[in-house]
């Protein structure tokens, strides 16, 4: 089961209203860890993030009667987590509020790919690949979906700067639309896309290196 596969939210909501425990378990299994990852972008440690998420589930249950379905259930759940994580961070007087992380992580220039992988101005084709990406072997998709690669991918995401990790988790792991993310996080669309771009570019680059290293190890 993956986090962003679409589920029939309507029937799930109805089952929750009926007090169907298995419907609640479906939601928890699917979103709990992504919620922790998102909360982690705001609060100081993993334990606090877990605490915020536990509290958010209570918020979800207690707010369910008032949930009007103006957003998707998923967006609503993540908005609750983000709100509670922000409140907790303020209460803790965490030194860097999310807005500062956003400024920090969108500032300056950051190359999606190391500049030395491109030809310099003296070359015949400046700005074109000097060390181009290499197409994956026979079945690159299958390789990516192996459980070791998945575990590595998770570590790569965990190691991203916090605001970038939050955005890529919401957009690409949980599959939320850009607008809901901007609203919930209170960031502009431009900054959201800069964060997403930097996060995705790092993940692709690190995955490329990991796959090249494991291939080399397998050959030697």
């Amino acid at each position, binding site marked *: 089961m993956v986090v*962003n596969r679409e589920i029939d939210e309507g029937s799930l909501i109805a089952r929750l209203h009926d007090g169907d425990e298995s419907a609640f378990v479906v939601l928890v299994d699917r979103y709990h860890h992504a919620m922790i990852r998102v909360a982690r972008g705001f609060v100081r440690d993993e334990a606090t993030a877990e605490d915020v998420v536990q509290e958010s589930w209570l918020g979800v249950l207690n707010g369910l009667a008032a949930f009007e379905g103006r957003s998707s259930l998923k967006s609503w759940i993540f908005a609750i987590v983000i709100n509670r994580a922000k409140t907790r961070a303020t209460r803790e007087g965490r030194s860097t509020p999310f807005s500062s992380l956003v400024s920090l992580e969108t500032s300056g220039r950051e190359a*999606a790919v190391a500049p030395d992988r*491109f030809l310099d101005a003296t070359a015949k084709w400046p700005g074109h690949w000097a060390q181009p*990406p290499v197409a994956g072997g026979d079945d690159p998709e299958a390789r990516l979906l192996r459980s070791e690669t998945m575990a590595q991918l998770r570590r790569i995401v965990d190691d991203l700067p916090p605001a970038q990790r939050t955005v890529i988790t919401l957009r690409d792991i949980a599959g939320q639309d850009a607008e809901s993310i901007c609203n919930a996080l209170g960031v502009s669309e431009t900054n959201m896309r800069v964060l997403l771009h930097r996060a995705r570019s790092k993940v692709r680059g690190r995955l490329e290196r990991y796959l090249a290293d494991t291939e080399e190890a397998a050959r030697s």
Partner: protein
Amino acid sequence: MDCIELVELITDYLEGTLPHHDRERFNAHLSECPYCVIYVDQMRATLGALGAIPAESISDAAKQTLLHAFREWKRG
């Protein structure tokens, strides 16, 4: 467009927010640069893999706490 510019525009391209003119330049570059085609494929595959990350199993203790909360909530 050259390759070093393309790798910076890829997110706008994939998110559908690249202005029309740049989108045409992007596509024109792809039609003549097999390396950038690989780059875009790799990025698409990366996003596919991110979307396929399996939901991690939640600890029994955390799950029990949540189920307890659910039963309390159900009792109202």
